[in-house]
């Protein structure tokens, strides 16, 4: 059970200091989560901390590849309604 960071991450640093198990590290091209350390914050917090502050929809996924913050959930911008949306690439 571990979360993953995918290519849409902008390396904004918000998640890194919040991780209770120091599972997140600076890497290129984007930050990484160490699967061996990540517990999805079970037992520590009600919600996974990285996904609770991440500003980019789709940038953090679970082990099945499901986005914790699906398109439209953070910006209110639906990729369907806004073909110019930069978030469209995440669908």
């Amino acid at each position, binding site marked *: 059970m571990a979360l993953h960071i995918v290519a849409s991450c*902008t*390396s*904004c*640093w*918000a998640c890194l200091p919040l991780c209770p198990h120091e599972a997140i590290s600076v890497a290129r091209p984007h930050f990484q989560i160490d699967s061996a350390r990540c517990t999805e914050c079970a037992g520590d917090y009600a919600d996974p901390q990285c996904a*609770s*502050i991440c500003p980019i929809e789709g940038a953090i996924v679970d082990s099945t590849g499901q986005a914790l913050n699906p398109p439209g959930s953070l910006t*209110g*911008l639906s990729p369907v309604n806004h073909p*110019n949306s930069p978030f469209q690439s995440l669908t």
Partner: protein
Amino acid sequence: MELLSQPPVNGSSPALHPCYSEQAHRHFARLHLAVAPACNIQCHYCNRKYDCSNESRPGVVSEVLNPEQATMKALAVGAAIPHLAVVGVAGPGDPLANPERLFATFRELAVKAPDLTLCVSTNGLALPEQVDELVKYRIGHVTITINCVDPDIGAKIYPWIFWNHRRIRGRKAAEILIAQQQKGLEMLVERGVLVKVNSVLIPGINDEHLHEVHRVVKAKGAFLHNLMPLIARPEHGTYFGLTGQAEPTEEQLRVMQEAWVGGEGETQMMNHCQQCRADAVGMLGQDRGAEFTMDKVATMQVDWQAALEKRTTVRQTIERRMALQSQFLDKVAKKPIPLPVRRPRTIAPQTLRMAVGSADGRTIDAHFGHLREFLIYDVSSDGVHLVERRRTDRYCSGPTTCGDAAPALSDTIRALDDCAVLLCSRIGFEPWRPLEEAGIQPNSEHANETIDAALAAVYREWRDSGRLDVEDTALSRSSA
């Protein structure tokens, strides 16, 4: 803008801060260190993915720095630009959402560049818990962006905040943010820190409500209130940009500013804001960031002690000059330069309206191609009257002009369409004709003369040749 008589506290000297003093912004440079990438809230006018080196607006940045790099950059800029007075952290996220990075940078600078004024610009969410730390690092200037004091309005501006380990949405999120901002403002004022409040004017959402915001922040002792126009273009990829939210017109801004000027109380209005990038370098309205990218900074040999001495000498000279100017203005001119509010773009009869390109504010010393800001004057038989300072670009005007150093000519022409003459020290062949065709006569004959003398000469020329009576020219136009 006049300064308050309030004594400087905690290292805060508005006289040196280009954002806090109308006069200082003509003499002193500032540097924004992009050391704070993380943010703890989302605003509908911000896109956390955005970076464009050709665009100038808050939150946009080309290179995020770690504290070591940020310190190195500040010392390099401080050695190359001896009139540097202020180092601020404004993003690209929120400074106080990155406390370790922020304070590590300030700790170094407090030792190696103790003369530099440090400041931060924050959304206020983490402010109350960081106030004492800010004071400890002798941060005498703090800007809080306050767009509302009503959570129902806040819910339309902020989709979420990160608070106590949860993502909070909607009205509740706005309620917490507002409470934190207000508490932070009170705590800062209590400790003698000068607080500038930035409010983004969002037509249809907080326009009427900002009067209430103004009343509240004034009552709590904010030093300055800065009304900023919303920037919302589809190409920025922000919620407001993509959903067609209107930007305010010049007229909407002006009406708002006029309503706030001259009220009771001590809070001043700021009217020279340039809505800088989070990594801007140089004078306000100028960005020399490209000269100080990290790869360039890494090759610079910096003697920070020598730089500190040089800055101290330069500052003393500038302060002497500013004092002389103040005396001169008190004695002779009796009016502040420039006037604090935007005036309607209507022109009195027998009056010649002219745009002046001037970097020093006294002489015609600026090259047209480098200008982003003009001084607008009305000249009539009553004399020379400064109408306003007018920006001709606020942001990148789109892909067709992206990459150009100068603002698009069409934007400049639109911004100056009520002026009959444009005075500058030099102007290229290319812009000359389109300006002339738009009814704006370019004139570089008065290069390096004082503005007043040049304006008077051009006015006489127009008057004596009978052109002031001609109806169908730019000078008799009154545009909205």
